[in-house]
């Protein structure tokens, strides 16, 4: 899982933006629309990053009154030191 986190956030083309998505979700669970707005990224781009993050077990989704919201997975929480190492290097 450690390796998966490194690869997903720092070893792929969309890694840095995925790291920003994960940081926003750690700050507060959000839905795709909110993420697009808060991170100033296109909705489709956000959808793609969420898909990759969820496929790789970095985030999980849950149903809320205002659509599907996303939050860091338990596995990501367990390796949060790794995530921190990456997040500290990514600009806002």
């Amino acid at each position, binding site marked *: 899982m450690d390796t998966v986190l490194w690869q997903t956030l720092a070893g792929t083309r*969309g890694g840095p933006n995925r790291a920003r998505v994960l940081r926003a979700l750690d700050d507060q669970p959000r839905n795709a629309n909110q993420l697009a707005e808060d991170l100033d990224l296109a909705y489709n781009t956000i959808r793609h990053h969420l898909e990759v993050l969820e496929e790789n077990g970095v985030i999980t989704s849950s149903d809320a009154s205002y659509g599907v919201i996303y939050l860091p997975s338990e596995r990501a929480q367990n390796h949060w030191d790794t995530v921190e190492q*990456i997040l500290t290097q990514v600009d806002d």
Partner: protein
Amino acid sequence: MSLVLDVARIAAAINIVLLGGLIAIWVQTYREIRAPMTLGSIVFATFLLAENAVALYFYFNAPAGMPPLAVDVMAVLQVLEVVGIAALSYVTWK
């Protein structure tokens, strides 16, 4: 015989292009996030690229009279590498 050699040449060339793309992505990411994982990937891909460059050079400068079996096996190795590197490129591009 020369067909097999052409296959090996094309495979080596594809590998060089794909690895160049991978290295570019990782270098770009490494500028932002200094992850050991990313640096290790760059080193790995660089040496694999060098291997393919040496292979390609050899495929264009091989002496006449190479044993056909050796040429066949080398071509198989090169094609297997293409599949592996293509898979890595796909997940890295996503």
